[in-house]
C-alpha cells in the first residue's frame, strides 16, 4: 500500500519536506514515492501529508490509481473549464 506520483507533478519539493517517512525522492522527470517506505501516513496523520500540501491536481494517486486531488479540487476551476482551455486531458 503506497501512494504514487504521476506525470502531472511539477517537482516543487513541497511533498518531500512534509513526508514523515522520507519516502519521496527527487527524480527525473518527476519526483517519486518509494513504495516500500510509504505507509500513506496511516497512524501518523489523519491525511497523507504529500497529498495535503501538493498544489497540483491529479499529481498523486492511491494504489488503485484514484486521484487524491482530482481536477478542479484545489483551484476550484470547474472541470469543464479546464477541458475547454486545454488544461485537462484526462488520466495519465
Amino acid at each position, binding site marked *: 500500500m503506497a501512494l504514487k506520483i504521476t506525470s502531472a507533478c*511539477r517537482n516543487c*519539493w513541497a511533498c518531500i*519536506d512534509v513526508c514523515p517517512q522520507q519516502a519521496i525522492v527527487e527524480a527525473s522527470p518527476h519526483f517519486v514515492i518509494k513504495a516500500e517506505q510509504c505507509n500513506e501516513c496511516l497512524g501518523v*496523520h489523519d491525511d497523507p501529508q504529500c497529498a*495535503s500540501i501538493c*498544489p497540483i491536481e491529479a499529481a498523486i494517486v492511491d494504489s488503485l490509481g484514484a486521484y487524491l486531488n482530482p481536477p478542479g479540487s484545489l483551484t476550484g476551476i470547474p472541470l469543464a*473549464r479546464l477541458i*475547454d482551455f*486545454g488544461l485537462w486531458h484526462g488520466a495519465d
Partner: protein
Amino acid sequence: MELPVIGNTASPAACASSGCGTPASTEDRLSDAIRAKVQDHPCFSEDAHHYFARMHVAVAPACNIQCNYCNRKYDCANESRPGVVSELLSPDQAIRKVLAVAARIPQMTVLGIAGPGDPLANPARTFETFRQLSARAPDLKLCLSTNGLKLPHYVDEIARHNIDHVTITINCLDPEIGARIYPWIFWNNRRIRGAKGARILIEQQQQGLEMLIARGILVKVNSVLIPGVNDQHLKEVSRAVKAKGAFLHNVMPLIAAAEHGTYYGLSGQASPTPAQLQELQDACAGDMAMMRHCRQCRADAVGLLGEDRGSEFTMDKLDALELSEIDYATARQRRQVVHDEIIAQLAQKRAARHASPALLPALLPAPAGDDHPTLPTASLRSVLIAVAARNGVVGEHFGHAREFLIYEASPDGVRFVGHRKTELYCSGPASCGDGEAAVEAEPQSVLETTIAALAGCEVVLCSKIGFEPWGQLEAAGIMPNSEHALEPIDAAVLAVYREMAASGRLALPAPSRKAA
C-alpha cells in the same frame, strides 16, 4: 517600537509644503535611521531603484497556500510576474550565481528570496542560502518575501540571519474576503479550505508583522488589488498594517489572464486599470507610505528593477562566468566604491531638492502682454506625463522602452505615480510555445500596445523617437517630446508642465482620452 512612517508626519526639515519640486519623494521624509536602511535597497526606496540592483534566487519552490492568482504549473521565460521562474537552484548553485552576478553588476546591493513558492515553506533551503551568503558576500543585504503563514514560527531565525527587510503579502484582514482569494492553506498537517484557512493565514500574517516590528526589522506589505474582491478593503488593510508599524505599503495590480491558467484568469476576473490602481494608491496614501515603483518581478529576477538580466546568468552559463576567490574579493571592493558613489549622488540630489526655491511662483511666467493676466495656479489641472527613463534621466529611445515611468505634474509639483509596461506579460501560446494554454492573444502591433498602455498620458518624454510613432502618438492625443533628452526626470517633467501652463493648455479640460 514606533517607526516613523513617511507620508504621515513630515519632519520640519522635509518637504512639508507643496513648495518643493518633488513633494512626493518618499526619501525626503524619512528619518536618517530609516533612510540609512533603505537608501540602497531598490525594493524599498524609489530613489534607490534607479541606481541599485537586486537579484532573487529561486531556491524556494514549495508553497503552503494556494492563491487564486497563481498557477504553479507555469514556467515561461518570457513572463515577468511573481511565482514564475526558469530554473530552480539548490543553495550551493544559488551562492555560485550570486557571486558571479555581484562580480559583474557592481550596483548590486540586495539578495532576496521570494519563491517561486514561499521562502518559509522551504526553510532548510532558504536559510542555508542566507547562511552561506552572509559568510561569502557580507556586503549584500538579505531580504525575503513571504505569504506570512509560517512567519511567527521563523521570525527568530530571520533575525538571526541579519535579514532586516521582510515583505509580507497581505491581501485582506477579513476571512470571508480571504476565502475568495485563498482556496486553501496547509496548516498543522492538514489542507484547510475556505474562510477557516484564510482566518489562520490572516492571524499568522498579523502576528508575524508584529513580531518583526518588535525585533526592529523593516516590513513592507504587498497587497494585490483585485477589483470587486478586496479593492475597498485594502484601505483598511493599509491603516491596520501602518498602525502595527509596517514601513511601506505596495498595492500591486492583479495580473490575470486566461492563458496563465489561474482561477482568476479562467474565471474572467478583471485586472485593475492603471487609473483604478492609482486611485486606490492615492486613497491609501493619506494613511500610509505607498510604493509605486514595484515591477512585480520574477522570483529569479536579476539587475535593476524593470531591466531583467536573468538570461545572462543561467546555470549553463555560470561555469564560464565564475571567477576566483581573489577576483571576488576585488569585485566586492569595487561594489563598495560604486555603492558609496551612488549614495553620495543621491544625497546631493536630495540636498538640491531642498535647496531649490519654491517652484510654484516660477511655474507660470508672466505672459508677454498685461492683457493676459497670469492664471491662478489653483485652476490648473494636473497632467500625466510618461517618461522613457534610464538611470533617473530621460534616457531611453521611445522604441526601445520596455516600460514608461508615469509622473503626475500639478501646481503642487511632480510626483511619481507608477509605471506602465509596453509588452504584454505573456503574449500567449504562439510566442510561449506552451501548448497547455489555448487562448490566442489579440493580434496587435507593439506600437498599438504601447499607445494603449499610455492611455491617460498627455505627453511622452524620451531621448529619441522615430517619425512613424511620433505621428501615431500625436493622433492618439499623446504629445511626444525628445527635447529633454538626458535631463533628470523631475526637472524635465516640470519644464514640460510649465510650458503647457504657459501656453494656456492647462486651463482647459484634458483632451478626450483614448480608452485603455
